[in-house]
């Protein structure tokens, strides 16, 4: 059957399909506009989801994680757990002296990380803490915009940058002093007063999980030596090589007698209880990816993907019924023509092919236009940097502004989904048309 389809010349079938679309231009136009709108909306929705995903990846890998992290815990007693890597410079040297790993790295930095309480005059809140050395991480000031104050002042000891979210909760402003309280390895709390030098613009949900201090201050409260850090953050030239580099680093450290923690795909601050309950003492290294460090936020992407899918299915069902209806009308109008074609020797499969080709021409043209329009509008909206006014939406979208990302894989996906669904919608009526007996079709009366 299929052999026959490809043996014969399809040029006239194409011509018939094309000319029938033009002939029934009003009906074709309505259907084409519907398909165009669906692909347009689909492209925009996918661009929003991709924008959230890209933004999450970008901000998370800036604020909370490297592409690959060499962190871990140090325990001086079985019930304690400090998020620390001792003699980290040795590990950094090992990594940078391995040519296979070094060639994949674009940047390597270290941060102190902890989990503690910020206490203001009015209230307090628990949160992850990041001790940074802005001399090594000057790119942070390009990404984090200060609403008030100056983020660059975190380069000096005793200073801290918080987000608008924290400022509201703690009821503090630039210049205020808050007390930092962190549990130490000896199960006591150390405290230190730090000054708020910058209130950063919120970057959505992730803001809640990041407060930036000078690394020396965090080192002080944790009573860490100079050769101790919280995490070695590795940024790669090509994120697709992440798994490969992770395996190489894993092997390198194992070969050099470092004890590695069992794989646990959660962020470091959710591992305290587990690590504290384990009987071992000393240093264990934990190698994690950026995805694992922000796994607690993946639900947002999952919700977006689920909403996109539900929305897509609804739109596609509408389109499928639309095209099914349009093909049924076309078949009813052209029943005599179908009978004639069957009588003069057209096989059933070619009848199916003829109507599918018509549906394909219409849907492919309309979806290309819809996708192009959607992509142009998405890129245009992105350039406008439209602020998100609602705090709830800001938190949910992980951004202060609407970010849309047009991805080629999403464009292709939209195109193929719409075309395949329209073809599926056209299959049943086309099949019915092919089953018409020539004698019945020729004698059809409207």
């Amino acid at each position, binding site marked *: 059957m299929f052999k026959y389809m490809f043996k014969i010349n399809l040029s006239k079938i194409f011509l018939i399909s094309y000319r029938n679309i033009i002939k029934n231009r009003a009906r074709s136009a309505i259907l084409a506009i519907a398909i165009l709108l669906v692909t347009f909306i689909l492209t925009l929705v996918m661009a929003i989801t991709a924008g959230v995903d890209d933004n999450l990846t970008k901000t998370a890998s800036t604020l909370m994680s490297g592409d690959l992290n060499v962190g871990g815990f140090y325990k001086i007693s079985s019930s304690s757990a400090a998020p620390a890597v001792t003699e980290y410079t040795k590990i950094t040297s090992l990594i940078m002296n391995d040519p296979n790993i070094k060639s994949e790295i674009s940047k390597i930095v270290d941060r102190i990380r902890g989990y503690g309480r910020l206490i203001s005059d009015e209230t307090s809140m628990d949160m992850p803490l990041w001790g940074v050395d802005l001399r090594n991480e000057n790119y942070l000031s390009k990404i984090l915009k200060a609403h008030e104050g100056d983020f660059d002042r975190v380069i000096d000891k005793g200073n801290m940058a918080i987000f608008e979210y924290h400022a509201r909760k703690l009821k503090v402003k630039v210049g205020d002093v808050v007390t930092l309280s962190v549990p130490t390895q000896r199960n006591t709390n150390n405290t230190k007063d730090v000054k708020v030098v910058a209130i950063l613009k919120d970057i959505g949900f992730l803001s809640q999980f990041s407060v930036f201090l000078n690394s020396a201050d965090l080192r002080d409260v944790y009573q860490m030596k100079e050769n101790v850090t919280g995490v070695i953050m590795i940024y790669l030239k090509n994120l697709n090589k992440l798994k490969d580099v992770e395996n190489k680093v894993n092997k390198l450290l194992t070969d050099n007698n470092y004890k590695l923690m069992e794989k646990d795909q959660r962020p470091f601050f959710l591992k305290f209880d587990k690590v504290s309950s384990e009987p071992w003492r000393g240093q264990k290294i934990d190698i994690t990816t950026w995805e694992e460090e922000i796994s607690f936020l993946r639900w947002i992407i999952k919700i977006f993907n689920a909403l996109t899918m539900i929305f897509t299915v609804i739109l596609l069902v509408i389109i499928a019924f639309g095209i099914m209806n349009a093909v049924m009308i076309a078949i009813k109008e052209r029943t005599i023509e179908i009978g004639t074609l069957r009588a003069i020797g057209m096989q*059933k499969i070619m009848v199916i092919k003829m109507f599918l080709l018509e549906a394909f021409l219409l849907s492919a043209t309309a979806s290309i236009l819809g996708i192009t329009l959607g992509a142009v509008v998405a890129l245009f909206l992105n350039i406008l940097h439209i602020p998100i006014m609602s705090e709830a939406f800001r938190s949910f979208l992980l951004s202060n502004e609407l970010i849309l990302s047009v991805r080629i894989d999403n464009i292709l996906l939209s195109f193929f989904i719409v075309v395949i669904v329209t073809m599926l919608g056209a299959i049943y009526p086309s099949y019915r048309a092919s089953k018409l007996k020539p004698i019945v079709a020729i004698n059809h009366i409207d």
Partner: protein
Amino acid sequence: MTNLISNLISVENVCKDYKLGAVTVNALKEINIKISIGEFMTIAGPSGSGKTTLLNLIGCVDVPTEGELVIDGKGISRLSDKELTELRLNTIGFIFQTFNLIPVLNVYDNVEFPLLLKNDLSKNKKERKERVMYFLDKVGLADHLNHRPSELSGGQRQRVAIARALVSKPKIVLADEPTANLDSETGQNIIDLMKKINREDHTTFIFSTHDTSIIKQAQRVVVLKDGHISSDEMMK
């Protein structure tokens, strides 16, 4: 053997019933007829006598309720839908009362269409063009190639339909009341054209009509009445 070759069409004890609700209509009853290569034959009879039904059966667009039809040596009751379609494509040409041209194709494309369905000619543009032009020239429409059916008169449309029926060089051309929608002069021209092609190419023509002036021009006249053959005469 001679009988097999000369009998292009053999209709043996063919009955055709239609169900109209609870009522069964016997459109054809025990029809027996043999048609040879090169005949120019008409099936005559009043409306409802079974002319179109018999043409449809010979054209393999319908199947008999009982009996057997042998077309060009093939018993059609044993053929699959695909084989019947191939038989129609290669052996039978159709001329319809209402012309049944494809409205979105021009004259050339309409005539060329059956050739595109044939495996051997589908990819041979040169031969297709030669054939189409030969038959369009024969029906006198070589200068109307780019006209759409809606731009042609009834007679011209029927000429296109004749060219389309002939282009694949079928052994049999079936025409169901080919002049019914034409004025008498145009109708006569169409019959003259069919006679000319029959004479020159020895194509077998079987057509139905009520028109007595046309009936007289056939070599053989089969008259149907109430689903039976009431007469089968060779004309002088």
